Structure formats: structure tokens, C-alpha cells
């Protein structure tokens, strides 16, 4: 959907972004990925498919999401003006649904009556369960047993929507293990099952497909910023776990000169403590996991290590291969903020603007709060407020020593 109007040549025909990306899966999955690639290529050129996708975004998700000029917060920081792209106002409360709508429509077009998904915090699981209910599909969501405990409200939400939630007991019992288990389900039920991956990672064509479905964010921003501010921003800032909201807002700006792109990873307790989820910022070694080559949190023997972040949505040892490429090519810059910095930004936005942001998005906000005071008042920062924080009440309250 995106490729036609840009000369940007990535990924190549076999799904590579420079040395990253690719199709690193067992032979048993290759035919399913071939089928998906062919089906997606056809759908993305079919005006009827695109029209239905856009109709659903407008009438079911509530797009376009507004851009909001956070004047009080900008004044308080005393520097650049901060604009927020309000993905938190989407149906289901985050950007994840943009992609789920697209993939569910594709599943229906391919004649697959069953969808599966992996989830960490539960946002992608909720979005998948939502669209499965909307299109009358069976839905199974894999979730690490540890996350099932931490995110009880979202588990119940998925069940209300008719999905089956399967707790995954293997490995570290978190997002990466849920992904492994979803892959195992897919390989076993390839005939009737569509795997809705929630981020711009995984084997080709997932990184490009999810990117295409999320670029609606950045495309809207280009129109809205011209209307609201009379120009495009100096910086575009987004949090990066797998990196789908960041790719979604970055991508339409890749060929706009003068727009700096900043991806914000989770520094957890701090990069130097080793307890973080920031493979790009920490310059982790590249490797192969979950079907693609990318920067990976790993030990010297190549075993994937446990990551740490207050935000379950950023708690992932890899990162989408296109971000790896954007880092190497220096088109985007990657930094990390700690749990404490993200929490501080969370509270500030609540008190100053009356918006409760997701902890994931609070990482991007924290970077904006660092950057704004260093810049003049005529500069513009556009921050992707990728989700709302209602799901994080429990985590934030616990940190403040409050029990419900």
C-alpha cells in the first residue's frame, strides 16, 4: 500500500532490509508464508480491499485520530512545542487495532476462519479478539503465564470478546514465549489458521505488511500538521518495542528532509545495569529470532536473555528489522529512557493535560520532555501517543505503593 509512492527500496523481494529481516523459519512454515505473501501482495493492490480497510478504520476504529497541541505541557517545559498524535483515542485504546483490522480482512479474504495471536501486555490480544468478534472468527490468544497474572483485566477483556486465552508456561513465560507457542500452533493448523502478528517483526512478509497497515498514522500526521502548525515537525518521536507504532509514524516521513526521527526504547533499570529492553541503544549483537535477523538481547552463547521494562508492551528482546536498518543507515536515531523517567512523564501528562498515557507511550513522552527544553519555542516535536494508560492502572498504583 505504501510502496507505490516512495522510492525507498526496502524490503527487497525476499524481505531483507539490508542485512536484516528475511525468512528464518523451519521448512514447515515456508509454504504458509509464501501463501500469505502472495495473498497480501494481491490484496494491497486491490482497490476494493483498500476501500474496505479504510471504511473500517473510519467507522469502526474512529479514524483519523486527532493531533493535539499540548500547550500547557509545552509551556511548562519552556522550549519546543509538543504535539501528540492521539492513537490512544482509537477503538480498543491503542494503535494495535489498525493492523489487526488489516490482517483480519486479509484472513477473511484467504478463507481462514480461525485467527491466533500472541500478546504481552494484552493490547494486541484485545485488538485481535475485538476484530475476530467483529468478523465472526474463532480467536486463540497466546500469552505468557507471567503476563496472564500481571494483566488480569486484559485477560478478562479478551474472554468477554469471545477469545480463548492460552497461558504459556515455557521459557521465561512472557511475550517471546507466547510468540514461540503461537508459531507452534500455526505450524500445526496451517490449513485453517491465520496468525495475526502484532508488530513489525517476524518473518517476511509480516514486517512490511504490519508497517503498511500502520503507516496510516504518519500519513494522517502529514496532513494534520500542515493544517494545525502550517508545517511538518522538526522531530517525530515514538516508543519502540517491536516497533510498529514507530514505523507507522516514521515511514511517511522517511523522505521528508529536515524531519528527525527518534525511536525510544525501554532502558528498564538503566542500560548499564543490563536490566533493560533496548537492543538498538545498547548496541546488542545482531542475530536470528522469530523468523528475522535483527538486533537481539542475548548472552555470549547466543541464548536469548530476559528483558526488563515497566511496560509489558516494550518488554521484548528483539526489534523490528526495519528499525535495525534505520539505525545502521542513520535515518533514525534510537535512545532509551528508564522506568523511572517514563513513570515521571506518565504522571506529568496526567496532571498537566488530563491525558492518561500508556506506559509504552510514556517512554516517548519522557524523551520529548528531555528534548523540548533544549530547543527554541519555534521548534515542533510530534510524539506518537500510541495508547491510553487505563490498562496500566494496576502497575502504576503498585509502584506508588497503592493496592486496590
Amino acid at each position: 500500500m505504501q510502496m507505490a509512492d516512495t522510492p525507498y527500496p526496502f524490503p527487497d523481494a525476499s524481505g531483507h532490509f539490508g542485512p536484516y529481516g528475511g525468512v528464518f523459519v523451519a521448512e514447515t512454515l515456508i509454504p504458509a508464508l509464501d501463501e500469505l505473501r502472495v495473498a497480501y501482495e494481491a490484496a494491497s493492490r486491490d482497490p476494493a480491499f483498500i476501500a474496505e480497510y479504510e471504511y473500517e478504520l473510519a467507522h469502526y476504529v474512529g479514524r483519523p485520530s486527532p493531533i493535539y497541541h499540548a500547550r500547557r505541557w509545552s509551556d511548562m517545559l519552556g522550549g519546543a512545542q509538543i504535539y501528540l498524535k492521539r492513537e490512544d483515542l482509537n477503538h480498543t485504546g491503542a494503535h494495535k487495532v489498525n493492523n489487526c483490522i488489516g490482517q483480519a480482512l486479509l484472513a477473511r479474504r484467504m478463507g481462514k476462519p480461525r485467527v491466533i495471536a500472541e500478546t504481552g501486555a494484552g493490547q494486541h490480544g484485545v485488538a485481535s479478539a475485538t476484530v475476530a468478534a467483529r468478523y465472526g472468527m474463532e480467536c486463540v490468544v497466546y500469552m505468557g503465564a507471567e503476563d496472564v497474572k500481571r494483566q488480569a483485566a486484559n485477560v478478562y477483556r479478551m474472554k468477554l470478546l469471545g477469545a480463548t486465552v492460552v497461558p504459556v508456561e515455557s521459557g521465561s513465560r512472557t511475550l517471546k514465549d507466547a510468540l514461540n507457542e503461537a508459531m507452534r500452533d500455526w505450524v500445526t493448523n496451517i490449513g485453517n489458521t491465520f496468525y495475526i502478528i502484532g508488530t513489525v517483526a517476524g518473518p517476511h512478509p509480516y514486517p512490511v505488511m504490519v508497517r503498511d497497515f500502520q503507516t496510516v498514522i504518519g500519513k494522517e500526521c502529514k496532513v494534520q500538521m500542515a493544517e494545525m502548525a502550517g508545517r511538518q515537525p522538526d522531530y517525530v518521536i515514538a516508543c519502540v518495542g517491536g516497533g510498529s507504532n514507530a514505523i507507522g509514524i516514521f515511514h511517511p516521513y522517511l523522505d521528508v528532509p529536515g524531519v528527525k526521527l527518534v525511536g525510544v526504547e525501554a532502558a528498564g533499570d538503566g542500560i548499564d545495569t543490563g536490566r533493560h529492553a533496548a537492543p538498538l541503544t545498547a548496541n546488542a549483537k545482531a542475530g536470528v529470532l522469530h523468523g528475522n535477523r535483527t538486533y537481539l538481547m542475548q548472552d555470549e552463547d547466543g541464548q536469548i536473555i530476559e528483558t526488563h521494562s515497566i511496560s509489558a508492551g516494550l518488554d521484548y528482546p528483539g526489534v523490528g528489522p526495519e528499525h535495525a536498518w534505520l539505525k545502521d543507515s542513520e535515518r533514525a536515531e534510537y535512545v532509551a529512557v528508564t522506568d523511572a523517567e517514563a513513570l515521571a512523564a506518565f504522571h506529568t501528562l496526567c496532571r498537566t493535560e488530563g491525558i492518561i498515557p500508556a506506559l509504552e507511550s510514556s517512554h516517548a513522552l519522557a524523551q520529548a520532555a528531555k528534548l523540548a527544553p533544549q530547543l527554541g519555542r519555534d521548534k515542533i516535536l510530534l510524539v506518537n501517543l500510541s495508547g491510553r494508560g487505563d490498562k496500566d492502572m494496576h502497575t502504576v498504583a503498585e509502584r506508588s505503593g497503592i493496592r486496590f
Partner: protein
Amino acid sequence: MSKIQASFQRLQAAGRKALIPFITAGDPDPALTVPLMHALVEGGADVIELGVPFSDPMADGPTIQRASERALAKGMSLRKVLGLVREFRQTDTDTPVVLMGYANPIEAMGQGAFIEAAVAAGVDGVLVVDYPPQECVEFSTAAKAAGLDPIFLLAPTSLDERFAEVARAGSGYIYYVSLKGVTGSASIDLDEVAQRIPQIRAAVGLPVGVGFGIRDAESARCIGELADGVVIGSRIIEEIENSAPDQVTVRVRDFIRGIRSALDQIGETAR
């Protein structure tokens, strides 16, 4: 000629089928791996597939996942696996050893360094589950040049054009995954296997071993009648899980013996 090729040729000449057991290196304890490898040979193994444990074994079912977790908990790593092969080679210079695992530990060591170290340790083949042929052209070429057979998977879902790609990249044998799913899954479609094996043999020109879902002498014999070799993994891991440490080598040897004699009956009825 590689040691693996020579083994298959010898077996073929004798009208016998290759028995290819899989164990995870370091499970249940690194000290037991070399004794277990010798027990497999005593029981009648022709080729040993030695699993390199990985933190995220996506293509494996619960049994091999557990083996991987136990081995990692005991500090197993790719370098240590190579050390175990070197130790095995001190007393067994004949039985081919194939390492089976995932790409990332190899990437972490460096492909070239791995190939060199594996050959030096006495490894004969390598099967990297998440290196399909198109993603590892350099690796498989370098491995072949160094005398390390790159072994590839084919699946019931693989299309015919895939055969040519595997034929170009692979050597040693083909590992045919006899069912959709992960290792240790339940049932095999024998008709499917009967139909596909001759096609693969003709297209790829390599012996075909069949695995995933072979659990006992009977299923081994059925597959053995169709294929050149039988791979058996999860069922051995279960035997290891259910044995006391001082019994484990004996029980695994006896289990393999049962499979061996079932496979050898095929030859006898044919003769």
C-alpha cells in the same frame, strides 16, 4: 565422500535402514551426554543427531523444549556441545554426528568460526532448523567446502520447486518431517509419506530420513519400509526423563535396540 554418505551407502548395500536417534546435548546432565551417545551406538544407531539447546526452540514440542531447558539450566552452550563431540570422538571415530539446533548460537559464534570448530571437533553434519536454504547460501556453501554436510528439512507442505533448492544447498541426507506441527506430535500419515519419499529421492538425489512422530518399533518399521532412515527424538527424551541417572544409558540403549531389531526385520523379509 563424507562419513554420512559412506554410512548410507554401506547400509544401502546391506539392504538396511539407517537408525538416527536424537538427544539434546547436556540433558539430563552434561556428564551423561557422551555415555548416552555410546549407548545409542551400542543399541544400533547409525547416525547421531545431537541437539544444541536454545532458549527459544520454536519448532519443537513440549518434550524437546523441556530437554533444552534442562540442558541450559546445566550451563550447556554450543561451545560445550563441540567439546562433548570431541570427547565422544576419542573412542568412536566412525559414527557420524549431526548437530541439530537453531541459528542464533551459530550467529553468535560466527558462521565461519563455527564451521571450523565443528569440523575440528569431529562433527559431520549440521541441521539448522531456522536456516532455510535461501537464507544460508554462504553458510551451506562454506560448510560443504569444509566437509560438513548441511542437512535440510522438507515437509508435507513443501512444494516441488522447493526440492530443487534443497538439492542445490544440501548434502548428506534429507530430513523429511512426516507431519504438520512440531516435534513429538502424535500421528503420521503413512500414505502421504509413501507418496512423497520417492518423489523427494528422485528430485534431490539424497537419502531420505523421516522424523517427527515416530514413537515405537511399529511406527519405525512402517516408516523404515518407505524411507532410507528413521529419526527418533522425543520418545528417547521421554525415556531419559523417566529414568534414574544410573539407569538412563541402559534404558536408552535397550529402547534403541528394540527399534533396531524392528528395522532389521524389514531387510530380512525383503531378502
